[in-house]
Each structure stands twice: as C-alpha cells, then as structure tokens.
C-alpha cells in the first residue's frame, strides 16, 4: 500500500511536469497545426534560464522562476516570428522539420553556454518528509501546487479573456477567425507566450525534481507528446489529463518493469491510442 502511494506521488509529480509541456504542444498544434518538436528544448531552456539569476546573483530558484519563464516566452515568440512565421503558407511538414532544426540549435546553444554536464539549482539535499512510510519532498509539493496554479490561470485566460476566447476560436476554425476580424498574428504570439511559459515551468520543475542537463527536455518530449495525443492533440484541457495518466502509468509500470522502460510505457500508450482512438480520449477534434 505504501509503495502504491509512493508511486502515485511520483506519478503526480511527473504528470504535472508532462501536463505543462503537453499544454503548450497542444495549443500550438491547435493554432498552427504542426507538432512542435522544439518543445522539449524550450523546456530545457526554461530550466537553464532560471539558473542565471541563481548562479550569478545567488537568487533563490523560487524567484528566478519568473525570470526563466519570461525569458523562454521571449525566445518562443522570437523563434516563431523570425522563422516559423515565414513558413506558415507552406505545408505543415515543413514547419515540423524546421522545428527539429530549432530543437538542435537550442540544445547546442545550451551546451555552448552552460556546458554538457549536470547542474543543480541548489547543492544541499531536499530532505523528504516521511509520512506513514511514504516520502514526500517539499519540492514535490511546490511542483504540484505550481502546476495547479498555472492550470487555473490558463483556464481563466481561455474562458474569460477576449484573447483566450479568440485562441479557442482560431483553434476551432482559423479561416473563420480571420474573416471575423481576429488579428491572427496576435493570437499566434499569445499562443507562444503561453506555450513557451508553460514549457519553461515544466523545465524548471523538472530541474528542481532532478537536475539540469542539455537533453533533459528532449528526453521528456516523448511522454509529453504521448500526453498531448492521449488528451486529443489540440485540446489543452485534454493535455492536462493526458499528462497525469502518462505520469502515473510510467511510475506504476516500475512495479513489473525496470525503470529504464518508463519511456516505452509512454510510447506504448501513445501507439495504442493512435491505433484505437486517434482523436484522443476527449474526441471530437477534426484532423
């Protein structure tokens, strides 16, 4: 029982991180109709940007969080406006390939500036609390609470603000959004602001939970994609549920499989979903 609870906690923590990554992936797919392969490296970038105030000014990671998120938003918007924007009129597969290129560039830049080794936000050990045989680290609480707050903010943005509604409208039907007078490029910029910000948060939480490494984001891209697909790609709310399912499934699988197979579990779930219900658990999105 204690083991099950322990795995559930790990699963929710991992799931929160996957969800945050998958939200951005799903939003971008809904608006621009291409799978953004550089999303993992935005995750990495968010984690490393947060390191700057920590290592230079000795600021606590909790505060540097905001710097990391903001800086990643700027990079996401810049990459879009400088590169992706020029490719919008051509086939989505070109955007996909371009995003693989961006992924490699971002990763190399991270290695160039911060080196290829592991880095940590803080040196000390985050002492876990033991509650009836279950370990909970303070960072775990921070991660889950942070993810919940971000998801609530996203919900308020999508449901209550004019730009959020326009984003949903554009995801429904981009051509109609355009003739309705919605400024399409403005909505696209907001999509990158939110997608990039959520990715950065995912990276920072991942770095807090484990360590920083130039391929940390690339490595979780598979479960993040699996989460987005499970939730029905293009549907940010589905991505949240998808992330939790993938996170929990990966942890529970360690009861019977050795932990290095975790990504295989995500991959298997993704493939099963694509075979039996390609529209995702919360179906309805047209191709």
């Amino acid at each position, binding site marked *: 029982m204690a083991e099950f609870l322990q795995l559930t906690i790990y699963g929710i923590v991992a799931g929160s991180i996957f969800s945050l990554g998958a939200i951005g992936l799903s939003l971008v797919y809904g608006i621009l109709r291409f799978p953004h392969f550089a999303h993992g490296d935005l995750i990495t970038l968010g984690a490393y940007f947060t390191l700057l105030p920590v290592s230079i000014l000795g600021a606590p990671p909790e505060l540097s969080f905001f710097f990391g998120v903001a800086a990643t938003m700027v990079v996401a918007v810049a990459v879009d406006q400088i590169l992706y924007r020029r490719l919008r009129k051509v086939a989505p597969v070109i955007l996909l390939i371009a995003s693989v290129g961006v992924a490699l560039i971002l990763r190399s830049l991270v290695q160039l500036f911060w080196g290829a080794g592991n880095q940590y936000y803080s040196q000390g050990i985050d002492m876990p609390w033991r509650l009836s045989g279950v370990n909970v680290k303070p960072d775990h609480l921070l991660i889950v609470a942070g993810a919940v707050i971000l998801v609530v903010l996203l919900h308020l943005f999508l449901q209550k603000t*004019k730009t959020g509604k326009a984003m*949903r409208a554009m995801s429904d039907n981009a051509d109609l959004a355009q*003739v*309705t*007078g919605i400024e399409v490029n403005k909505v696209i910029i907001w999509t990158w602001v939110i997608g990039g910000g959520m990715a950065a948060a995912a990276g920072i939480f991942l770095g807090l939970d484990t360590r920083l490494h130039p391929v940390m984001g690339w490595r979780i891209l598979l479960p993040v994609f699996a989460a987005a697909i499970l939730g029905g790609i293009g549907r940010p709310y589905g991505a949240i549920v998808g992330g939790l399912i993938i996170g929990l499934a990966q942890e529970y699988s360690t009861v019977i499989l050795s932990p290095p197979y975790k990504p295989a579990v995500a991959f298997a779930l993704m493939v099963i979903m694509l075979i039996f219900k390609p529209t995702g658990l919360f179906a309805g999105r047209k191709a």
Partner: protein
Amino acid sequence: MSLLQVDQIRGGYGDVDILNGVDIRVEPGEIVAIIGPNGAGKSTVMKAVFGLVKVREGSITYRDKEIANLRPDQIVRQGLCYVPQEKNVFPTLTVEENLEMGAFIRNDDFSQDLEKVYELFPALYEKRRQPAGALSGGQRQMVAMGRALMLNPGLILLDEPTAGLAPAIVDLIFQNINKVNGLGVSIMMVEQNAKQALRMCHRGYVLTTGRNRHHDTGENLLNNREVAEMFLGG
C-alpha cells in the same frame, strides 16, 4: 455613391484566373443576389472582396475607399462582414462567445448590440450558453448572421445562407435576411435557391465562368427566358 463597387476584377487561386472581369455594385439599403452555376466563381467574388483571393486587376471600393487586397481584419474595420458558405460558426465556443468574436475588433461596450441580436433571433438567447456546434443548421446560420451584426456593418456578404437546409428553414432564413435588411444593413448574397432569392432581392447578377452574364432587377431576371431556362427549372 454606391456602397460597394466591384469594377472589372480579375483574380483567382495561384496563377489561374477564376474571375475574368466581374462588375457588381451594391447601393445603400439594397439586397443584391448573385446566382450562377456551380463553379461560376460566385464564392470567389466574395473572397476577392474580402481579401482572401488575390485581385490582379480592377478595383473594389467600399464607401469610395479602395479595399482590394487589404487584409480581412482591415476590411472588417471598414464595416463589411462576411459569412462564408460553410463552417461558419466556431463549434466549441458557446453561442454568446461566437457573437463576442464578431465584436473582436471593438474595444467599447457592445452589450447593446448583443441585446439587439437576441431580440432579432430569440432562439439564440435560449441557447446562449450552449456550444454553437450543437445547434441545428438553421440556428447555426443565425449565429453566423448575428456574429456579423455585432459590428453594426453597412454591408453583409452571405455565401449560400440556405445551403443544405430543409425548405421550412429556408423560408425562415430568408425572413431573417429581410429582417436584417430592415435594420438598414445592405446584403449581398450568393444563392442556390435562385427563385426565392430573386423574388426578395432588389437587383440580381447572373455569373458564368467568372464573368457577368446578366444584371437586372430581381423581377426582370425572374421573367428573363434565358435565366429561367438556365437556373429556375424552365
């Protein structure tokens, strides 16, 4: 001065011209119908007016201002609205959110215009919290028209507002178009139900292969033998 003046436009998708010199004008307060066979370029004319199809030659003026090849959001700002042929609501947005999107470019309070649309289409008020995709075809058409009205436009372009609807609903839609026109909004519509459209319009245009074929009052077109043979079933 005409409200909308389309003058000898040529243009199309890619390198092929679909429109080979089309003239259309809409006067303030008018309903203008455009009819013609499938593929004649009726939808393309509307897209050209709305900046969705490149206009290579000719001019399009709205209230004497050249609007050819402007971006759609710039055209909306001139007071022109467009309801496309199909997929003309945002299915996952509620009815009310659909209407709000119509007012996207406005920064002032538009609650009065929302009221006005609900007064015009009471059925929408009851369904205002439902996703538009769950509505019937006729109601979706009302949402689309209501969304256009949120801007107090001078002219609405309607592309086949009655396509695929049951005859009883078709009548309702035509009544609604008359109601909207009664508010002082000019209408330019493409219609397959040619007879009904010509009966209710002030003037009509017949297009074939991207050219003007006939242009007259609705009544005269109804009585024109050639038009009758071509489109009105003899």
